[in-house]
């Protein structure tokens, strides 16, 4: 069960042709796949296309009705290899993942796929995790398209264009026997918009037909001599076929402007931002009408020489807006213009940033510099020119009231009071959720290090990577998904201390079993590996994996990690089935770090992801209480008069619901710990306080809903005795009250 359900939204996939669809980008892409007659879909979840996988999973019924096979691939490499079904058979297939990381993993299969070429359309939908909101290294997927010769689509970010390019992508792939990558940026995946639908189509050739009528052709297999032929095919046949298709079908767009001697060339995905930047300069309206002509590359690879030359002819200068680096397209344009002796000036990263996201503000600055150099009079039609300086001067002169109303696009971040905010506005990176079962693992690791000294800790990709942040500050490197243990492999030398590696269950099944565990067994690594088993692929949105405990009608779950690890040859394995037992996790870790047993020491730390658990049990609890059943709810609290305001508990927890508040005691100026209503009663605070021997301020409150007769009787007896004693003591306090 994924974190977000799209059961309601997927009904939009059924709306009949000609009607308006309104919704999120990922849902529109799914609809476009169905409209294109896709035969199979696979992929691996990860932001920003996690929800695309969730939509597909929730739409499985609709997919099955249409004979579309969907599966959650074990990794991006698996997904890419899945496209092999389109090599010999005229079946359209689509796969999706987070990029560039997913493309890195998939690139072996992609390179083989691109070498032999495809018969049926093969579409790779990549969620380009770049810029604000990204969680990975900042790179471009563009290079993969270039190196393996796959075409790269980067459509304008409105649903109509995105849907159109899914359909175009399949056709282009078939027309040129080449896999096609469709790049969608983070915000495009989540943009809410609209488009007019077409009818869903069944695949024209099914997987069943293919299985029953197998076809093979050695010339499509990557092995000499065919592999040498493939390279020539790419250049002599597939490339020209693609160029022809792209030109004929007008996949790239030309927009007229009334300024004739300068123009803009841009990646389709940047279009809306460019229009807004022009608008802020007074050169466009809200409907895409621009004074500067534009050549919008919805296909960013290959670059169509003829189109570039046509656009540049008669222009003194053009500006290339290309996000990220290296500036592959700009370099390509320079070559095209020079080879064809076109003397139009080409600007690009000289006025725009070489690295970093192309925000509207960044593009506005670049456009302004370009226009100032070539057609400065265009800017004077609008008072926005030099507005920044005007506003800054006004504030500097301490006469804000006298400042004229400023045009749009003038931030006032230079104001001293706004600048001062840097002292108080805290960084707020993502972190472990309330009640997260991974938190106690790192609290235990911190305590183990207090006993045994600091150790080298290798991290992995997943929620557990939040361990590197305060308050835990644990972990030295992260080398990729499932590679936590692998990244400790060099530390396989005799030493007084062992390395500690962390790996999530998602990464474990993705590749960690072989790259980490198998490798450690084979090379006789003596290190400690902690596998965080929280029942889901949690960081990507709580999707099921092999070892999930959920009943899943479409997948095989409940395959224990321990069996796999023992199967791989690990002798020292400890499974802890409740991570909140901080003392036990600490003791187990200390044992692993000190035992004399050779070979890798693997600790499987299991507890269900709290986000998913709450979603699962909350409705059950509420229902039980409503029906009058006895139910006990646990939550934690802190006695403010016992707490001394030292916050050691917070430094070992960091739970969002464990906060601070004023003590209310004039003698206690430091705020005391406080548990807010978000508490889910996981027990971590109490366990930490106990294991670390911190303080007795924490308490667990058991709230008995619908107490039964026995409960009430017992309460009565207790109240009689306890109440008497309490009143006795209170009277002494009242006597000496001041």
């Amino acid at each position, binding site marked *: 069960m994924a974190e977000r359900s799209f059961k309601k939204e997927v009904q939009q996939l059924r709306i009949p042709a000609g009607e308006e669809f309104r919704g999120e980008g990922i849902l529109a892409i799914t609809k476009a796949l169905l409209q294109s007659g896709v035969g199979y879909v696979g992929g691996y979840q990860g932001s920003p296309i996690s929800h695309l996988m969730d939509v597909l999973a929730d739409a499985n019924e609709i997919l099955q009705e249409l004979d579309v096979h969907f599966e959650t691939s074990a990794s991006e490499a698996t997904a890419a290899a899945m496209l092999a079904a389109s090599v010999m058979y005229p079946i359209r297939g689509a796969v999706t993942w987070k990029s560039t990381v997913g493309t890195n993993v998939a690139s072996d299969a992609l390179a083989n796929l691109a070498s032999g070429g495809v018969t049926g359309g093969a579409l790779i939908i990549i969620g380009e995790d770049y810029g604000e909101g990204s969680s990975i290294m900042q790179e471009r997927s563009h290079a993969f398209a270039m190196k393996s010769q796959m075409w790269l689509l980067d459509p304008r970010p409105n649903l109509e264009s995105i849907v159109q390019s899914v359909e175009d992508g399949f056709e282009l792939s078939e027309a040129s026997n080449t896999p096609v990558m469709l790049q969608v940026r983070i915000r495009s995946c989540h943009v809410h918009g609209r488009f007019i639908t077409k009818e869903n189509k069944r695949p024209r050739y099914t997987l069943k037909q293919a299985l029953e009528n197998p076809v093979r052709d050695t010339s499509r297999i990557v092995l000499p001599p065919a592999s040498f032929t493939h390279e020539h095919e790419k250049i002599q046949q597939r490339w020209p076929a693609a160029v022809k298709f792209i030109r004929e079908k007008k996949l790239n767009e030309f927009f007229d402007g009334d300024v004739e001697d300068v123009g803009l060339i841009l990646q389709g995905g940047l279009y809306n931002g460019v229009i807004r930047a022009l608008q802020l300069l007074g050169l466009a309206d*809200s409907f895409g*009408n621009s004074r500067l002509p534009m050549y919008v590359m919805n296909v960013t690879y290959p670059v169509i020489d003829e189109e570039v030359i046509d656009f540049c002819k008669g222009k003194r200068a053009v500006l290339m807006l290309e996000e990220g680096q290296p500036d592959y397209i700009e370099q390509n344009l320079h070559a095209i213009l020079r080879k064809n002796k076109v003397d139009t000036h080409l600007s690009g990263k000289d006025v725009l940033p070489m690295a970093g996201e192309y925000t509207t503000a960044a593009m506005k600055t670049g456009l302004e510099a370009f226009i100032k150099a070539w057609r400065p009079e265009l800017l004077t039609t609008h008072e926005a020119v030099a507005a920044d300086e005007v506003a800054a001067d006004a504030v500097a002169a301490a006469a804000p009231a006298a400042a004229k109303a400023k045009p749009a696009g003038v931030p006032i971040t230079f104001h001293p009071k706004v600048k001062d905010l840097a002292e108080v506005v805290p*960084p*707020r990176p993502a972190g472990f*959720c309330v009640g997260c079962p991974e938190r106690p693992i790192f609290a235990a690791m911190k305590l183990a290090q207090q006993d045994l000294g600091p150790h080298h800790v290798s991290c992995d990709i997943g929620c557990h990577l939040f361990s590197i942040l305060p308050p835990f500050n644990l972990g030295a490197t992260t080398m990729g998904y499932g590679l936590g243990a692998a990244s400790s492999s060099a530390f396989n030398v005799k030493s007084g201390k062992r390395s500690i590696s962390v790996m999530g269950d998602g990464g474990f099944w993705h590749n960690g079993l072989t790259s980490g565990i198998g490798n450690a067994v084979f090379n006789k690594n003596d290190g400690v590996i902690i596998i965080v088993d929280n029942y889901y692929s949690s960081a990507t949105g709580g999707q099921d994996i092999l070892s999930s405990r959920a009943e899943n009608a479409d997948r095989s779950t409940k395959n224990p990690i321990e069996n796999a690890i023992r199967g791989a040859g690990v002798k020292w394995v400890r499974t802890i089935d409740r991570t909140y037992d901080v003392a036990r996790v600490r003791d187990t870790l200390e044992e692993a770090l000190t035992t004399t047993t050779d070979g890798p020491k693997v600790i499987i730390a299991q507890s269900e992801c709290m986000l998913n658990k709450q979603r699962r049990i909350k409705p059950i609890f509420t229902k039980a209480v409503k029906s009058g059943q006895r139910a006990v709810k646990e939550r934690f609290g802190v006695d403010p008069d016992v707490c001394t305001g030292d916050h050691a508990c917070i430094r070992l927890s960091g739970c969002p619901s464990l*906060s601070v508040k004023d003590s209310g005691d004039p003698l206690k100026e430091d705020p005391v710990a406080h548990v807010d209503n978000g508490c889910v009663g996981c027990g971590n605070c109490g366990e930490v306080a106990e294991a670390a021997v911190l303080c007795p301020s924490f308490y667990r409150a058991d709230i008995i809903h619908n107490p039964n007769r026995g409960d009430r009787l017992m309460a009565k007896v207790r109240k009689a005795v306890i109440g008497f004693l309490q009143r006795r003591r209170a009277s002494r306090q009242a006597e000496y009250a001041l």
Partner: protein
Amino acid sequence: MSKIVFHPGTPIKIAVLAMGGQGGGVLADWIVDMAEKAGWWAQTTSVPGVAQRTGATIYYLELLPESDAHAAGKPPTLAMMPTPGDLDLVVAAELMEAGRAMQRGLVTPDRTTLITSTHRSYSVTEKAALGNGIGDPNKVIEAGLEASKRMLAFDLQALAEKGGSVISASLFGAVAGSGALPFSREAFEETIRDSGKGVEASLRAFALGFDAAAQAPAAPARIDTSRPAPDVPEKAANPKVDALLQRVKREFPQAAHGMLVAGLRRLIDFQDIAYASEYLDQIAKVRELDAAKGGEAKGWALTQAMAHRLAVAKSYDDVIRVADLKTRGSRFERVRKEVGAKADQLVYTTEFMHPRLEEICGTLPAGLGRWLENSKTVGGFVKRKMEHGRRVETGTLTWFIALYLLSGMRRFRRSTLRHQIETAGINAWYERVLKNAAADYDFAVEIAHCRRLVKGYSGTHARSGDRFARLMEAADRLAGQADAAATLKRLREAAMADEEGRQLETQLGQLLRGAPAEAGFTRQAA
């Protein structure tokens, strides 16, 4: 080339800043639904990713009347992200997120209505500080007044809770009440009804948010961050207590009355009247010295500091004290209130205690305690048997009576080992303050305040005690130096900077020994 015709129509631009899980997405979706229903073109984008896990995140919306699109003959091209300086409405679901919006330049004086909840959700760095790490909320209010066209700030979290709902509902109400969007209250409420989930509670929270915004003053008031001063009553009912109170009023400067009364209250509660009286005697000596050293001109800083720190020091947190606080009737009621228990529900608490040998010995008579602590055989046996985590169910008769009896040991407290140890420590510090006050008043005040470091239980208490001891050591070396007070203050701040005492050690090394930085390998930047 053709002449390009520009069509009128400028979208309304809105940014919602929230933390993952706060419901910023729900709010954005509501605005889209409402706008679309009213015949607007609406677009929303966001960057959920790992940001959905408690991190700061932003939702961006643009709204444009469909009639404008019809007139233009094509759909609008709307931006995917907010542009600094180009927003009409910024909604922040937490106060510091409003600050972040301003830092990002999203708030403009001639354009932007800034609506923010004033409640705080403290960041880890704020919470984890050894002392008080909370940022000043009024910096955000002050900046907002300058940066925005209009700022509306109130506790929308509290209003949401009052309505039995979540903050997205009260924020939606505040947006409606602010009049920043051209939609009627009915249109807003209809949207909530159409969503079909928790409608009644959402509408209640919506109404509270709406009223707060509709009646909001032109400029929000500053947030009161002052700490309540202890009240000084006219007289006390018990004649012995009253005698102490009157002595405070008679013998001590008014500036110190509040702290002294708070101290008396704490110590009577902790031990008895005699103990409180002893405290007053000790402060009287300080006051005398303070007067002699021109304390009046310094606002009686020394008397005030000692009135505060000595009371805390003397009411050290021992097992007896904890047992007392945990078993009080007022505590049982407070817990019920805090967990929001209804009248028909039963509440039981479980305490997490981990007595160490030190605590056990501390509660015994000094001689016996010291013998046990030093006895390898018996002490080791007790350590093995007793020293482990205990879940104490205070609501059960056995545990309650055990704790009650333990708290009753107050009457023997003065003879315990712990009392002996604490008193020795307190006296040494007290004498040090008095000794230095004669030569360097400000320095003595700083020494007094160093006691702030001593807090916590068990291991934490021991670590804080070590840091305090290091400071006292340093104080003895600093005595007589010209900048002793300022240096000690800096050291105290360093001691509060990190738990491991790294900063303190570095500073101590530099100040007292002139030691160079530790040798190691470094990595060049990038």
